[in-house]
């Protein structure tokens, strides 16, 4: 039949003449349209999907936090391993009381270690005591003063920027080496240089004799941030703060396995200080412990992520089923004017994915915030992981598609006649 010879003002439509032909190739345009449709109906759905989206937001947040902290822990432990060196063992005294007295290591234990144990090249100790550090009425740093032996700076790889380090010869003198951040604060308070300035520690004046270069935080003792610390001669802090030595580091002689050095130190303490209980760990063990701590975080976040995503996904499925029921007339109409079952299915899957994706975007923001908080809490440097964000977006979309499949299938199986009936 030809209608053009009847004087139709519109030329025959090639698409109509070739029904079916070329429809597959134009699916990109239809996909784009369906996506646009999804955005429009999404706005009306967002209000009531808020609850369902909470699950998605929390789930994706946990995914992001999980991947980010996992990556950060890995990087951080590698960095510390490199910085600390594999040849370091750490000695911590365990709490023990003999006749009412708490036993501590003493300076001779640490200083004599290198000569008494052949596997050890050198040893250093550090103590810390709480005190307010003031300069011109201003409080500086972390309210902790560190007392260190002369070898501490070399073993901890803390480089001097100017002045000199404190040494064992300084004994009880109130001299200190300032971290880069402290030195900057002193300059900000009006001094030309931190060198020669006096800060108030333990209620007494203490002269800054050296300034360190800026370095990242250490895993030594309690989380030590060298930039925000002042280092005094160990004897000065022990006397002024009334603290004993709880923490020491020793470096294995070249070519000696860290584990061998660890056992030698342990045996040495068992021999010379039988009442003092110490735990000796290698750098490798230290880092392994840190990693397992990180893995625990990852496991916890992973559990939160899976549970929330399932709960959120089921919620989204519910919202979509409700939406399908409410839009029966629309589905019937679309089928009547030529939508195939696949078109209807695609439309609802896209809507579900878009819904979850919008929750996912919020979740990414939440996850980055949580990762930041975890890093701050654990004292690790924070960085935003692009992998984490990509994983989050992909997971959100996948959840949307997965939990959208069933409602979309239901929509596509609706009988158009039933659906159109008022």
């Amino acid at each position, binding site marked *: 039949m030809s209608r053009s010879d009847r004087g139709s003002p519109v030329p025959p439509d090639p698409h109509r003449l070739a029904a*079916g032909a070329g429809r597959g190739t134009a699916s990109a345009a239809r996909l784009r349209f369906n996506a646009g449709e999804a955005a429009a109906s999404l706005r009306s759905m967002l209000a009531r999907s808020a609850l369902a989206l909470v699950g998605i937001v929390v789930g994706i947040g946990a995914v992001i936090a999980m991947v980010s902290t996992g990556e950060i822990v890995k990087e951080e432990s590698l960095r510390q391993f490199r910085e600390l060196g594999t040849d370091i063992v750490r000695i911590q005294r365990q709490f023990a009381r003999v006749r009412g007295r708490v036993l501590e290591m003493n300076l001779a234990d640490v200083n004599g270690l290198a000569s008494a144990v052949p596997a050890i090249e050198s040893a250093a100790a550090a103590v810390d005591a709480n005190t307010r550090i003031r300069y011109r009425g201003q409080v500086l740093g972390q309210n902790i003063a560190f007392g260190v032996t002369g070898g501490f700076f070399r073993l901890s790889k803390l480089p001097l920027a100017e002045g000199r380090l404190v040494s064992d010869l300084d004994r009880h003198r109130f001299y200190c080496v300032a971290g880069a951040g402290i030195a900057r604060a002193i300059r900000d308070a009006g001094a030309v240089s931190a060198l020669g300035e006096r800060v108030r520690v333990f209620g007494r004046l203490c002269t800054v004799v050296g300034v360190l270069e800026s370095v990242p935080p250490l895993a030594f003792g309690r989380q030590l941030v060298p930039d925000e610390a002042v280092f005094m001669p160990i004897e000065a802090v022990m006397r002024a703060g009334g603290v004993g030595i709880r923490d020491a580091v020793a470096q294995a002689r070249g070519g000696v396995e860290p584990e061998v050095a660890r056992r030698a130190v342990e045996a040495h303490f068992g021999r010379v200080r039988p009442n003092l209980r110490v735990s000796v760990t290698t750098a490798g063990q230290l880092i392994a412990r840190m990693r397992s701590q990180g893995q625990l975080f990852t496991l916890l976040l992973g559990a939160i992520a899976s549970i929330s995503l399932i709960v959120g996904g089921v919620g989204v499925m519910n919202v979509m089923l409700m939406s399908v029921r409410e839009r029966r007339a629309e589905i019937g109409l679309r089928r009547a004017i030529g939508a195939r079952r696949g078109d209807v299915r695609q439309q609802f899957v896209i809507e579900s994915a878009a819904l979850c994706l919008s929750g996912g975007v919020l979740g990414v923001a939440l996850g980055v915030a949580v990762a930041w908080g975890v890093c701050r809490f654990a004292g690790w440097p924070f960085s935003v992981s692009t992998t984490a964000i990509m994983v989050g977006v992909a997971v959100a979309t996948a959840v949307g598609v997965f939990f959208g499949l069933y409602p979309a299938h239901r929509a596509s199986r609706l009988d158009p006649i039933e659906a159109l009936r008022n």
Partner: protein
Amino acid sequence: MLRLRRVHKSYRLGPVSVDVLSGVSLTVREGELVSIMGPSGCGKSTLMNIAGLLDRPSSGACLLRGRDAAEMSDDERAEMRNAHIGFVFQSFHLLPRLTAARNAGLPLVYRGLSEAAIRKRAREALDRVGMADRHEHLPSQLSGGQQQRVAVARALVGEPAMVLADEPTGALDPATGDEIMTMFETLSAAQGVAVVVVTHSAEVAARSHRQTSMEQGVLVETGPEAASTGAAAAAAR
């Protein structure tokens, strides 16, 4: 154009089977305007659904442009509807979130045309039904008559060979219903589109070329002579 041959349709209601259509035969040629009257529940809508490839007959054949609907898959029937049939409903069935232009262009989306092509043709279709100044209005901003015009534009936009209208004037006042019928007359006379109108209104039926009536599942020709008056009415305009 459309040929229904001895179409039967029965539904199962529990243990009993109810015949809705019992042997309906109907041929609609291009450019023909056919009306179907009859009481509620007599099977008019079922007949329209079968003619519109939305439903399958229990027995008998439905041929659209020479192709037997029974031999088509679900997707093929969707494609045939999209390419050859325009639907107009009593309750318009416009999508409330979409503008008039988007509503009118909807069938073309399923042909996979580009956004620009769809817009252009949707505007042309709206212009043809006298809605040139309402392209960006939402259905809720339009009167019933205007909404039905948009629905007619949606039925026309794909240049169908046949328009199936199920009580298109049922929800409109007589004057507006008249305008809709005039559009159908123009469509059939000027463009050779076959139009089938189900109606309760004798005035609407009187304007068709052929009047039929459905009773107890059987279709009867009631007014072949109406063809001349219908044609005359169209010519007078």
